[in-house]
């Protein structure tokens, strides 16, 4: 225990590289650095990890490699889950291990250069101060790992197995099948046709519905913002109503209203003209109807955003334009439009990604229907509703997972471009 009181001359002979090397066993290097409490803590942590986790990790790796050996006893799904957890835990342990080397080396250098060994109290204070941002992020990160990251990894793994209704644990074992499922998506006639039609409709849906929604909102916002219009508050409040009513309620109500046989639209609105439109049973009509409903549901939010921005544009801009003899269209194109877009662009992009994943309207309106011959996706199914149906209705987990990965790739490409344009990203440099 007298080690800590030794004169600095001996400290000069202290070798940080040796400290780092001793840390092959976590903690020993720290003890060599005369940081006894820290060393003991590291040692204890390492011993605990070795003792408690080695079984868990071994089973995990065995499980993720073999996916089980005896049917009924081994549930491939749990083994896969444990395997993924084992990989995550290993990653954390490795991070700790690397940190342990760096820490021993740093402390060793400090000791050699004659820094005083900080007291336990100071150490605690230091750990609190420097670690503070990590403590703040940690709870959120754990929840995220459990709820988002882990399921995504699990889903990616499933895409490379043969998990479906006929081959499902615990009665049967799963096997790794490589890229077979993706191959089937491209080569199998049924899957290829379904994938192409769903993919193209998803793109059309996202683009048309969202753009229309924004267009209608912009048109109405500019209209209502006209200085001659009275009762602005009342008009705005009514226009926002569709946003305020829970969308699952309105979608189900629309579904009933557009019902081919007893819906109010055919029975009350169109009956006087002698027209009956197959809103739900004809794929094209169903698509048009869904887009119209989405415009009804989605324009109020954008309208509210635009109205807020419009009110904040200074009237001096318009007065200056009038002096220059600008027409109404000029004013809109050069003043209103750029202002509105600049202020709301990120939120508008979110509208697009929201519609890409808009499961609710597709599923609640018609469950993705009507059915289409020669494909196993409904006429209005977008990727996410198709995945849902494959998962929970036909239990074809492997294909659902493979399609999810394709979806993920699309989202990632989209995200990549958004990153590059996002202002918050460029502003990172400021701090």
């Amino acid at each position, binding site marked *: 225990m007298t080690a800590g009181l030794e004169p600095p001359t001996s400290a000069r002979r202290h070798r940080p590289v040796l400290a780092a090397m001793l840390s092959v066993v976590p903690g020993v290097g720290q003890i060599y650095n005369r940081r006894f409490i820290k060393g003991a803590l590291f040692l204890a942590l390492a011993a605990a990890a070795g003792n408690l986790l080695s079984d868990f990790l071994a089973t995990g790796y065995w499980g993720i490699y073999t996916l089980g050996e005896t049917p009924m006893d081994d549930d491939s799904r749990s083994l896969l889950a444990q395997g993924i957890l084992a990989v995550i835990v290993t990653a954390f342990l490795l991070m700790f291990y690397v940190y342990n080397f760096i820490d021993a080396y740093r402390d060793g250098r400090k000791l050699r250069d004659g820094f005083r060994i900080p007291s336990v109290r100071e150490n605690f204070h230091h750990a609190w101060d420097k670690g503070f941002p990590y403590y703040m992020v940690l709870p959120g990160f754990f929840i*995220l790992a459990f709820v988002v990251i882990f399921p995504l990894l699990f889903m990616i793994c499933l895409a490379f197995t043969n998990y479906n209704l006929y081959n499902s644990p615990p009665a049967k074992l799963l096997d790794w099948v490589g890229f077979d499922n993706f191959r089937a998506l491209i080569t199998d006639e049924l899957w290829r046709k379904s994938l192409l039609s769903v993919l193209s409709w998803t793109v059309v849906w996202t683009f048309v519905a969202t753009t229309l929604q924004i267009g209608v909102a912009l048109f109405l916002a500019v209209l209502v913002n006209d200085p001659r219009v009275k009762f602005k508050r009342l008009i705005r409040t009514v226009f926002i109503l569709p946003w305020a009513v829970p969308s699952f309620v309105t979608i189900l109500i629309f579904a009933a*209203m557009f019902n081919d046989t007893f819906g109010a639209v055919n029975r009350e609105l169109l009956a006087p003209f002698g027209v009956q439109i197959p809103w739900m049973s004809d794929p094209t009509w169903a698509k048009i109807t869904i887009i119209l409903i989405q415009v009804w549901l989605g324009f109020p939010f954008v309208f509210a955003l635009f109205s807020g921005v419009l009110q904040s544009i200074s009237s001096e801009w318009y007065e200056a334009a009038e002096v220059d003899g600008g027409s109404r269209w000029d004013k809109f194109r050069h003043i209103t439009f750029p202002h509105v877009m600049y202020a709301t662009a990120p939120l508008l992009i979110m509208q697009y990604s929201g519609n890409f994943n808009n499961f609710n309207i597709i599923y609640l309106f018609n469950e993705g229907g009507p059915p289409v011959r020669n494909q196993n996706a409904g006429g209005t199914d977008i990727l996410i509703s198709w995945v849902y149906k494959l998962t929970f209705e036909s239990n074809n987990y492997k294909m659902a997972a493979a399609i999810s990965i394709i979806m993920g790739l699309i989202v990632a490409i989209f995200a990549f471009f958004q990153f590059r344009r996002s202002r918050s990203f460029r502003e990172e440099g400021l701090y």
Partner: protein
Amino acid sequence: MKKSAKNRIELALIYLVVLFVFAVIAYPLLWTLSISLNPGTSLFSTSLIPDKLSTEHYEWLFTDPRSDYLLWYKNTLLVAAVTSAASVIVVSFVAFAFSRYEFVGRRHGIYAFLLLQMFPVLMGMVAIYLLLNIVGLLDSLWGLVLIYLGGGLPMNAFLVKGYLDTIPRDLDESAKIDGAGHFRIFFNILVPLAKPILAVVALFNFMAPFMDFLLPRIILRSPEKFTLALGLFNFINDKFANNFTRFAAGSILIAVPIAAVFLFLQRYLITGLTEGATKG
């Protein structure tokens, strides 16, 4: 003279458009209201203007022993309150760290959050189902809370971070010089200034369980644990035309309070969102 005529026609056209939109918005809403007040449970016999009004469906929801409506209301309120409170805490911590501290892994952390924000929780639904099953949280309201919390986290964290970035750093730096600790800076300086966006986060997370039916459908099994959205969906999913009037009545009872809160707070919401977004 000519100009004012043109003026009047324009104005008339504008009002015409506004009235048309009014009608389009009101029609489905009024239709629902009238159905909920129609006697009888069949959709076939209803008409837009009922012959006689009746509140039997509302009474059924509250008094009939076969109705779980109040129970669902209680479940939903519980899930909503816990989700909302927990996410405000967790989200503001994360946003605080990302906005105010320089630390190893910060940049990657922000990337990760940005990327994860784009993936819907739904993509991992098989895994979520199995995972909750393993840890025994399937068919439990706590499992639902956990998923809501995690699923909304990246996006909410971004909103709040964007907002915090707009608050001048001089404020907390001068407090730091005066000797304020991390938590003091956070609770006494940043939280009061970030109230608008925290309110937005709280409200969004409170509303989500009232509006979402998909996650409850995956996670919850027993009818006494249903949330409102799921319970109401099952009203019409089981026997379509038969329960529609009850569904309408139940929906009105959800829609009215939510719409009231939205309309009351919309100005606040919009400012919070645009300020967070233009910076974020």
